């Protein structure tokens, strides 16, 4: 089964782009998404979805990746729809609240889509290499950039494990006839605590083994080399230029639109 947000091996224009360019584009786009006016981000959304389709990512796959966040998306929408009233009375549904809810949810969706576009089209090693590239100046301040990169890699690696472990413990609870829908609050809290403890125990055990495995493969803190060579190609420069022009257009739109 496809796991949310992980790299999808495909041959596409977006896949071939330099990871640094994609990372920089996503960061700048994210800032703009937060800052821009509602109508501008509507246009931006269209462009972003075109980029998603050109990366050969189907809307179904995108939906699968967004699905785990559906609860937060609905929560964000409801929070704004119910509590953003200009007349100061709350809670209650109002036209302005609904509008605010849609805009904030749209912004949130675009932020997630931009991040997913990066992670689905770029191998984690390339993202880490790009991060290392941008963090490189910090080496002069003795910031352990290589160690940070390994930490990010391990965090990415642990994420699916955590989800899998949570699933396993929940199934084990179900197998022993625990049904949270029919349980009292006290039992639910107890079951939740035992889930957390089991998760943490599993995580620590795994971290211990992983540390041994890393040691066995000669890992030591400090500088490491990388098999990823980042090199900007003519297509990357052209894309960077087009992206910069589009960003300028969005800025202009943002200035003239209401």
């Amino acid at each position, binding site marked *: 089964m496809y*796991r949310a947000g*992980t*790299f999808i*091996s495909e041959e596409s224009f977006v896949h071939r782009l330099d990871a640094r360019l994609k990372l920089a584009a996503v960061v700048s786009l994210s800032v703009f998404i937060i800052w821009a006016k509602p109508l501008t981000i509507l246009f931006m959304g269209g462009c972003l979805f075109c980029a998603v389709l050109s990366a050969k990512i189907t809307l179904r796959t995108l939906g699968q990746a967004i699905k785990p966040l559906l609860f937060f998306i609905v929560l964000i929408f409801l929070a704004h729809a119910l509590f953003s009233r200009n007349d100061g009375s709350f809670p209650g549904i109002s036209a302005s609240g609904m509008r605010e809810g849609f805009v904030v949810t749209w912004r949130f969706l675009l932020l997630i889509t931009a991040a997913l576009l990066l992670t689905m089209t770029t*191998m*984690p*090693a390339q993202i880490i290499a790009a991060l290392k590239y941008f963090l490189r100046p910090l080496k002069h301040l003795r910031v352990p950039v290589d160690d940070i990169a390994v930490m990010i*890699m*391990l965090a*990415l*690696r642990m994420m*699916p*494990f955590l989800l899998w472990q949570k699933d396993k413990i929940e199934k084990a609870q179900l197998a022993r006839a625990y049904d949270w829908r029919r349980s009292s609050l006290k039992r639910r809290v107890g079951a939740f605590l035992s889930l957390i403890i089991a998760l943490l125990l599993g995580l620590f055990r*795994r971290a211990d*083994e*992983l540390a*041994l*495995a*890393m*040691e*066995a*493969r*000669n*890992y*030591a803190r400090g*500088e*490491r*080399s*990388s*098999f*990823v*060579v980042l090199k900007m190609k003519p297509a990357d420069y052209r894309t960077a230029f087009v992206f910069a022009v589009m960003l300028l257009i969005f800025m202009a739109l943002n200035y003239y639109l209401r």
Partner: protein
Amino acid sequence: MISLNNVHYRYEPEGIAALRGVSLEIKDGEYVALIGPNGCGKTTLIRHLNALLLPDKGSVEINGLDTKIAKHHTEIRSCVGMVFQNPDNQIIGMTVEEDVAFGPENLRLPAAKIKKRVAESLQRAGINDLATRNIENLSGGEKRLVAIAGVLAMNPRYIALDEPTAFLDPAAAARVLETMDNLHRAGVGIIHVTHKMEQAALAERVVVLNKGAVYLDATAAKVFAETKLLQQINLRLPQITQMLLKLKKSGLPVRTDIFDPDEAADYIGQLIKKK
């Protein structure tokens, strides 16, 4: 050569001794199976070969390098690769080639050399088609092979594998064993920890551990001829040996040093024809 001299080890100062005076020598390119009941010290022993554990008493030398000297560790860990029991606890990268590159990256090799090593290791492990695959989408058997490729990228002279076929279906287990056999043929020394006697019988030499000490150390034929000694520590014989022993007990003059099913079938077929 790997040399263990009177190795003693305890996990806790007051705890039970995991190893009690183990002395062993493993030659370059040798295929050694390490068997024994649960808790006999197999995993503890192989972790000494990679300097992950250091002996409380005695010494472990890998090509003359003492594991107790920290500056030797990089060379020792490049020389003896370690494949852990659970590949999920060993795989660090998110994609196959990313994980295989982890070791050479730690050795600070240049990118071109790392890429070459990754390609070679994937080829040797027979999984070059998986290079860009996401680890999460691999089967258990494929993950074992990725773990082996990750170790091969360090160019080891020996590989210690802790139950490499545990939890695998027969087809995946056969693929892992075939890869190990190919590596052995290519000159890599194999130290194979296993509970499966049929797999141990494939090795050139079988070392039986019991209560942290070497109990038996000989060729598979000689070790599995010691039925009473093996029964005393609750180890069962390979199924083929059990069958041949039963035939012998029933009065048939059969050999009992055959461990390969095909060879056993041919042998029994010939016996039937003679009769």
